[in-house]
């Protein structure tokens, strides 16, 4: 279906998409000889207004990463809009032939976040894009562009939006036709980054994976609260120092201590690591994501002091997780040790992982996490002998640090030796911390 009445201005070069009532055409604008995209819809079509709403939405944005809208017209039978022809190749096409470097992946992800951020914040009210997928991301040299705003919607209209979007890319709440907010675009971004990671050399990078994981949580409330936050997480991976309001400060570093199973000594190691850094004059805080260890320490340790949400005892500093009816205390800046127990969920923004494997036969791990090969993952073998540690190192093809046997709750010199060996090449990570 090629709309009548456009011939005097436009010459049809190619039909890109066509149905009985709609058409997307590549046209030549005769007056200046420039290629443009013409989208037309029959006035009788039930979605005829969608083209006007797309035009209305695009009109409000001045971004080189979003197609420019040239005109909106109507003939006797059709509404049509003419917009910039975006040259380049879609992300899907590109990834069919190429693999991304980690830096490329981060660059594209950050640029995409910026575009969506612009949609969410630039106009008088947020625009929800709703159609994030590799086909709509265009690579034109170093530029990244987002096309097709056919189902984009103003946030005020998103409460009663119809179920629309592409299965596999759209957020669950979007496909169910529930009320929408910016969270559905965060989900879409997460899916696109996941797709890029699968087609990249950074396939097992746990830091990218965890960003994807947070962005694509089933419940929108569990996702990043804003695209800015997601962008800040990506930028921190790029090594950029972000100093905006919500960005990760360069002094806030996270080390996650993750157990290969229960009872492998994760808590002991995480607490000792916290003591190790504090003794080295690096301000370090212990945080427990699974249990209530710091609360128990407060109840049971002699001479433990509580101040502004932090428990102080000897060289240990632990964060108490209060509920909402306790006065709010801002978490102090510093290095954070996350005791993850045997949880497989890595805290967002983790820089280094210490993976703890028990040495006893019943503590052996059947399947190691894919991220174990990452250079920022260190493997500790606890409750083990020399032979077990060597066998483990051969099995995972990676250096294994054997944790010493500890006699009491005091931090021992042997533990210090293990941590010193692990972090001897990580001085850059803590620059700015040491006094």
């Amino acid at each position, binding site marked *: 279906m090629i709309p009548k009445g456009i011939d005097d201005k436009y010459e049809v070069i190619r039909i890109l998409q066509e149905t009985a009532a709609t058409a997307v055409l590549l046209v030549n604008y005769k007056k200046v000889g420039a290629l443009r995209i013409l989208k037309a819809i029959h006035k009788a079509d039930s979605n005829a207004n969608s083209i006007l709403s797309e035009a209305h939405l695009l009109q409000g944005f001045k971004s080189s990463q979003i197609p420019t809208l040239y005109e909106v017209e109507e003939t006797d039978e059709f509404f049509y809009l003419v917009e910039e022809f975006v040259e380049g190749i879609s992300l899907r096409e590109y990834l069919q032939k190429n693999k991304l470097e980690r830096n490329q992946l981060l660059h594209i992800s950050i640029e995409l976040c910026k575009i969506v951020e612009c949609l969410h914040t630039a106009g008088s009210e947020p625009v929800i894009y709703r159609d994030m997928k590799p086909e709509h991301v265009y690579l034109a040299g170093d530029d990244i562009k987002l096309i097709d705003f056919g189902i984009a919607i103003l946030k005020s209209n998103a409460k009663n939006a119809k179920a629309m979007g592409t299965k596999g890319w759209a957020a669950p709440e979007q496909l169910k036709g529930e009320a929408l907010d910016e969270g559905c675009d965060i989900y879409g971004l997460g899916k696109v980054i996941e797709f890029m990671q699968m087609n990249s050399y950074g396939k097992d990078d746990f830091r990218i994976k965890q960003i994807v994981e947070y962005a694509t949580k089933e419940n929108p409330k569990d996702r990043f609260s804003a695209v800015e936050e997601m962008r800040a997480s990506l930028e921190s991976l790029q090594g950029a120092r972000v100093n905006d309001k919500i960005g990760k400060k360069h002094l806030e570093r996270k080390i996650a201590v993750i157990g290969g199973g229960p009872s492998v000594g994760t808590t002991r190691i995480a607490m000792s690591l916290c003591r190790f850094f504090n003794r080295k004059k690096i301000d370090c805080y212990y945080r427990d994501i699974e249990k209530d260890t710091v609360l128990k320490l407060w*109840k049971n340790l002699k001479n433990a002091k509580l101040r502004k949400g932090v428990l102080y005892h000897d060289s240990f500093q632990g964060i108490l997780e209060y509920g*909402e009816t*306790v006065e709010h205390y801002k978490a102090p800046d510093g290095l954070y040790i996350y005791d993850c127990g045997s949880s497989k969920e890595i805290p967002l923004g983790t820089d280094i992982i210490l993976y703890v494997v028990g040495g006893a036969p019943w503590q052996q791990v059947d399947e190691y996490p894919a991220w174990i090969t990452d250079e920022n993952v260190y493997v500790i073998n606890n409750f083990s002998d020399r032979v077990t540690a060597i066998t483990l190192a051969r099995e995972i093809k990676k250096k294994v640090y054997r944790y010493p046997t500890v006699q009491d709750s005091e931090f021992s010199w042997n533990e210090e030796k293990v941590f010193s060996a692990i972090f001897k090449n990580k001085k850059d990570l803590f620059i700015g911390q040491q006094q």
Partner: protein
Amino acid sequence: MVNNNKNNKKTKRKQICVVGVSPKSGVTHICLSLANFIHSVLRQKVIYIEHRADSSLLGVVGENQVKIGELSGYKYKGVNYVLTNDVSTIYKLMSQTNCWIIIDMSKLTKETKTIFNNCNRRIVIGSLRPWCERDYYRFIDKNIEQREINQVKFYNINKQKNKNHFKQIYGQNLYEIPYIEDPFSLKEEEFDGLIDMLQ
């Protein structure tokens, strides 16, 4: 392994009933503080029961209605609230739920006394100012059996002056009520006083 445990902050799950010697003794204020402390600091499940004919908390906590077992209640800042004047409902909750229960009791009557006596932490709050002293003593004589007096914790809402006199009469300690500025925004310096009340 060296055990350095000399700290006295251990708490066992309890059913706590707080009653005032006279109206406006600050029972609700202290009950709210305890319930919020249990939820937000000890991170444990807690049900707050307000036993009163005319609820004073409905306007504060009544926005979000929830089911607590078979009963209707409210959830506010993590604490479940049951606002009832029905003694059998309180019994039911006490026998069927396995969590902390704080009972904010308006007064002790023949009916409510059995609830009070069934709680494993019983707290009486009142003033021992000279012109209130007699009410406090009368309340004890009328409501607390001599054989159970050692299972009740007595609190004075004013600065301690006559605790020795109290001990001489009843053989029990008289404690000073901790000062809590805002039960919905607890401060760390208030924790010790609340822990003492729970132990």
